[in-house]
């Protein structure tokens, strides 16, 4: 043993014996030998004779020498132990400060060791799919909520909408100590919970929502679990935030959240309000429709009444907050109780009174041979929404292999919309009242038959009513209903759904990873749709009677009884897997229109095949092939016209049809995010053998749209994303290329069938720096070209977008960001294409010591007040101008406790 080591040992010994320091030190040393030869590697330990407690130990060196020291006195046992020698034990009571003990050991002891050790407690044995991340490793002190923290963890992507992705898979849920409040509406948690109580973040791979399916289900789902520090449990925690504009237009945002997470009970209270365009309840939709559709043994996940009148503006690739004049309020109370370890109660309640306004002016141009006209619409919408929603979830585990789960929801979804309208230069007032009611009950029974087999059965009942009252105080339809004096038009819609479904799935995962699923389900669905258009008599009419045009009334019922057989088998090998699947269904449909009944009983066949193949170290190929048959939906079948707004009257086919389609996709991925070169290439093709097309009867004041069953629509697409990290620039250069083409037919009254081909090309180039300096940038340009070719004529529209984001950072506490965007839209022939510039500036200052963050934000610095977007369809070309929130400056403070 080296001198340094001995010194160290002595030092350590002195430290250990500090309490009794001052007593005489005894050194025991000597030489160990066997059969006259010095014996090294012998452990010599000194123990108290009284209790065998070890005082110190050492190993003999190559020459067999050893040295031990102790400050203790009394009777000791000096033990000599080595593999290959008989252990030796001496009882000593050293009286001298320097005691020499030489020993001779005899060969023997452990002659041979050949052992395989089986650890009863394997780390990760049950949690092999769990990656645990220590929050401290990622905290930089500038994060006020969980979302901020997640953004800093490599491999986790947080979208601007708050969606969380691991790689490119969106997480199922974000749990706290294994309990989940919000399912896919987790943004409410991640955007409002402070990071202070967090200790660890667990990334749960191959996650199963159903505990009994863990390890069996062929899952590629991911979930997050937040684990709390011991001292933060059973404490009220939370945050408050306030933002307001001291000068100019008054905009504010305020939020408060309070939480208490204990081992048994968890509470979460949230209140928020704003009028700066932010949709505080964007995630409420996930709570209304909870659960995951792709899970085995689930039924009726995507069943709801169809939306018939929707005035929500649709602005892809544009920040909705700029057009959203709102006044959002949200209050939410949530609790999870665990009265016993086998029983869990979860209750969620929401109230969401909100006002939203938006303004849009549309110019729509029809230029189809001799159908040529232009329409103008100037809209100002004010929508008042009152949503109340409550959900109760009970989970009971009578045994470790059985889970019984009940979920019941009750919702009241109301909205009142008032539209002030200038349509073709005639003013009118349009109102739309929705008074929805929803109740949804689901009972799931899961039973784990063995480590690899499980049975899941579910039964679901849904009752939903979505009545709509639509009215307009003008009469634009003289060409449709005659020139009589009409003071207004009303439409009442009854839109009801009743659903009962039951299913049983058997799932089995074999030792080699192969996976088998067999399911049987039966559903009964009844949808009722009554619509009635009323023409209110004008003041000049003699008979003050309301007219009900019979062609504009529906009283229909669609009854479906469906039995499905589902089977799926996955064969897994080290670097590839193949999953053939088959769905076989028997459908009995009955469509009742007033008194008239139509029946259709048919067999549906939907086979498919998906495969994954790791071709080489960096490359992966995925493919999916399918053939699918499904029946037409309620909205495709509506026999008579109903109105969906000022101009459009729609009617369905009044005939149940089976739609067949087939498709194939291929995806190739090279490398990953931390590689210099990372690429994704995707191609796909789809053929719709039957599809629902439209026949339009176009008039300046109205459009009669009839749905038609057409054949052979083909869709092809290809897209590539190429990333290359340029070392000399220290940043990532990204190129996006996309192509999309669709061939189909539409029909226009007077023009007959028209062959249409649409092409869309996307190009994008962007650069994001990753400089070590305090300054960084992200810039890019993208171009989209849309074209419609029909009857030898091609209409093309090209839109361009550019952005330049600059970031400045001084230390950890002070950060600036300047976001600039420009949009250039193609325009109608007589219009001039316009470019719109937007610039937003923000500065953040963190006062970490006080868990407080201050910010100053300036929005829409160029004060762009309107925004004109152009749209091309197969029958028209239109531009829509939206009014935008003005420039404003706000000052904010966020405090976490």
């Amino acid at each position: 043993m080296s001198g340094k080591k001995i010194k160290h040992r002595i030092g350590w010994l002195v430290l250990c014996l500090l309490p009794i320091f001052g007593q005489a030190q005894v050194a025991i040393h000597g030489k160990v030998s066997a059969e006259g030869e010095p014996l090294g590697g012998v452990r010599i330990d000194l123990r108290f004779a009284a209790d065998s407690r070890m005082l110190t130990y050492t190993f003999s060196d190559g020459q067999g020498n050893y040295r031990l020291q102790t400050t203790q006195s009394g009777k000791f046992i000096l033990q000599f132990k080595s593999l290959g020698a008989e252990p030796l034990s001496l009882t000593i009571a050293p009286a001298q400060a320097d005691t020499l003990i030489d020993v001779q050991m005899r060969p023997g002891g452990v002659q041979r060791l050949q052992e395989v050790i089986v650890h009863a407690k394997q780390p990760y044995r049950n949690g092999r799919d769990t990656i645990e991340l220590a929050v401290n490793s990622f905290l930089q002190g500038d994060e006020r909520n969980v979302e901020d923290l997640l953004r800093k963890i490599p491999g986790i992507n947080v979208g601007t909408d708050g969606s969380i992705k691991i790689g490119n898979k969106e997480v199922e849920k974000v749990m706290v100590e294994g309990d989940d409040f919000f399912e896919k509406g987790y943004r409410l948690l991640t955007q409002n919970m402070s990071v202070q109580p967090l200790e660890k973040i667990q990334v749960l791979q191959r996650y199963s929502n159903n505990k009994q399916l863990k390890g069996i289900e062929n899952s590629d789902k991911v979930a997050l679990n937040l684990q709390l520090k011991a001292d933060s449990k059973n404490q009220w925690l939370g945050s408050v935030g306030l933002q307001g504009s001291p000068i100019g237009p008054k905009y504010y945002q305020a939020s408060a959240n309070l939480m208490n997470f204990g081992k048994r009970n968890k509470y979460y209270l949230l209140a928020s309000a704003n009028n700066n365009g932010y949709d505080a309840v964007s995630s409420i939709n996930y709570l209304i429709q909870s659960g995951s559709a792709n899970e085995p043994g689930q039924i009726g996940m995507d069943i709801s009444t169809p939306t018939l009148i929707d005035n929500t503006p649709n602005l892809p690739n544009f920040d909705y907050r700029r057009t959203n004049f709102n006044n959002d309020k949200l209050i939410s109370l949530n609790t999870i109780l665990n009265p016993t370890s086998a029983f869990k109660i979860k209750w969620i309640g929401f109230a969401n009174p909100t006002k939203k306004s938006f303004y849009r002016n549309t110019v729509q141009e029809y230029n189809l041979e001799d159908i040529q006209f232009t329409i103008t619409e100037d809209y100002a919408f004010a929508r008042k929404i009152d949503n109340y929603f409550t959900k109760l979830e009970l989970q009971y585990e009578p045994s470790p292999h059985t889970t019984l789960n009940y979920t019941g929801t009750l919702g009241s979804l109301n909205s009142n919309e008032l539209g002030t309208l200038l349509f073709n230069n005639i003013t009118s007032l349009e109102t739309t009242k929705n008074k929805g009611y929803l109740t949804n009950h689901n009972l799931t029974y899961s039973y784990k038959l063995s480590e690899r087999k499980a049975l899941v059965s579910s039964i679901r009942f849904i009752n939903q009513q979505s009545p709509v009252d639509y009215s307009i105080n003008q009469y634009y339809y003289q060409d449709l209903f005659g020139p009589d004096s009409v003071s207004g038009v009303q439409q009442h819609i009854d839109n009801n759904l009743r659903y009962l479904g039951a299913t049983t799935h058997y799932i089995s995962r074999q030792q080699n990873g192969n996976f088998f699923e067999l399911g049987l389900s039966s559903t009964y669905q009844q949808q009722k749709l009554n619509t009635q258009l009323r023409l209110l008599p004008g003041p000049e009419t003699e008979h003050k009677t309301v007219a009900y045009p019979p062609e504009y009334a529906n009283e229909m019922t669609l009854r479906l009884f469906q039995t499905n057989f589902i089977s799926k088998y996955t064969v897994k090998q080290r670097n590839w897997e193949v999953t053939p699947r088959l769905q076989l269904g028997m459908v009995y449909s009955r469509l009742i229109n007033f008194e008239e009944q139509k029946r259709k009983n048919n067999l549906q066949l939907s086979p498919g095949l998906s495969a994954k193949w790791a071709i080489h170290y960096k490359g992966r190929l995925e493919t999916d092939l399918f053939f699918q048959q499904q029946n037409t939906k309620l909205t495709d079948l509506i026999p008579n016209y109903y109105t969906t707004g000022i101009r459009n009257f729609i009617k369905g086919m009044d005939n149940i049809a089976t739609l067949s389609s087939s498709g194939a996709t291929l995806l190739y991925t090279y490398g990953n995010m931390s590689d210099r070169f990372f690429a994704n290439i995707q191609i796909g093709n789809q053929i719709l053998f039957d599809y629902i097309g439209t026949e339009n009867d176009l008039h300046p004041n109205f459009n009669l749209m009839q749905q038609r069953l057409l054949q052979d629509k083909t869709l092809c697409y290809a897209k590539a994303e190429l990333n290359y990290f340029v070392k000399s620039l220290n940043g990532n250069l990204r190129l996006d290329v996309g192509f999309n083409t669709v061939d189909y037919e539409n029909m226009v009254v007077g023009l007959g069938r028209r062959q249409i081909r649409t092409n869309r090309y996307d190009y994008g180039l962007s650069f994001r720096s990753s400089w070590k300096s305090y300054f960084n940038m992200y810039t890019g340009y993208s171009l989209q070209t849309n074209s419609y070719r029909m009857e030898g004529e091609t209409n093309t529209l090209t839109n361009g977008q550019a952005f330049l984001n600059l970031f400045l950072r001084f230390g950890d506490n002070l950060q600036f960001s300047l976001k600039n965007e420009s949009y250039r839209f193609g325009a109608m022939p007589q219009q001039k294409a316009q470019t719109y510039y937007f610039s937003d500036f923000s500065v953040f200052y963190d006062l970490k010591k006080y868990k407080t963050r201050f910010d100053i934000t300036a929005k829409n610095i160029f004060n762009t007040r309107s925004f004109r977007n152009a749209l091309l369809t197969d029958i028209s070309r239109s531009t829509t101008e939206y009014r935008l929130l003005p420039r404003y400056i706000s000052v904010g403070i966020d405090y976490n406790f």
Partner: protein
Amino acid sequence: MYKYSLFFVFLLATAVSYGQKLKAVYEYLPSPMATFREEVYFQDGAKTSVRDSLPQPMSKATSNGDDEELSGSMSVTLDMGKIYRNIVIKKNNATQLLETRSLKGSNYLVNDELPPLAWNTNFTDVDTLGKHICHKATATYRGTTLVAYYTNDIPVPAGPYKFGGLPGLIVMLYNEGANPHYWLLKEIDYPYTGDVPVNEKYINTLPKLSLESYIKKEDLETEERMRMMMSKMPLMEGVTVERKKVRGSVEQVYEWEKN
């Protein structure tokens, strides 16, 4: 490919060849997703530890039959390129230990002036691992706390990786924290008559670096990879962040980094 070209040679420890060789095989679990095999050879106070560079397929006992996932792969652990075998050699008369490390496809012989581990064996905790009664010991090690269970039955001061110096062979070791690395003793062979599969001659021809300069090189490389990843991330609302480096190993803070 060096792995396959390594010749099997004897490890000549000290001048005196009195003891028999002990071979211990550990399972090294740096994360739930990966398992490595580590072989430790111990003779006359000299230790050689050899860790395989490729993760082991899950053994039957520990797997639930799942195969490795093809899709949905995570990028939490950074892909550091091709990793060579990690060999740690500690001679009984030297204060330093030698370690082979690889960086960007090159192997280095790294000299680690590892301060001796100050084990605290003052625990009454006893655990039975396999058939061995094991005692707990802890030590502070480069920014983390090691928790080891050793057995008095095998009086050999050896253990996995750079660890040892306890009264008996280490049966289990992990570092405390949210992301523990585990070492589990799986097999013991004594006396082991085979060779130590290490070509010392080859190792000695490798470019030599001190641990400090190696770690600095590695940190630069990690940082570059982090930057590559960050530069591909979608834009975050508001601000950009400078990344703090997080080491994926047990060693988090080095002696020269403590101020």
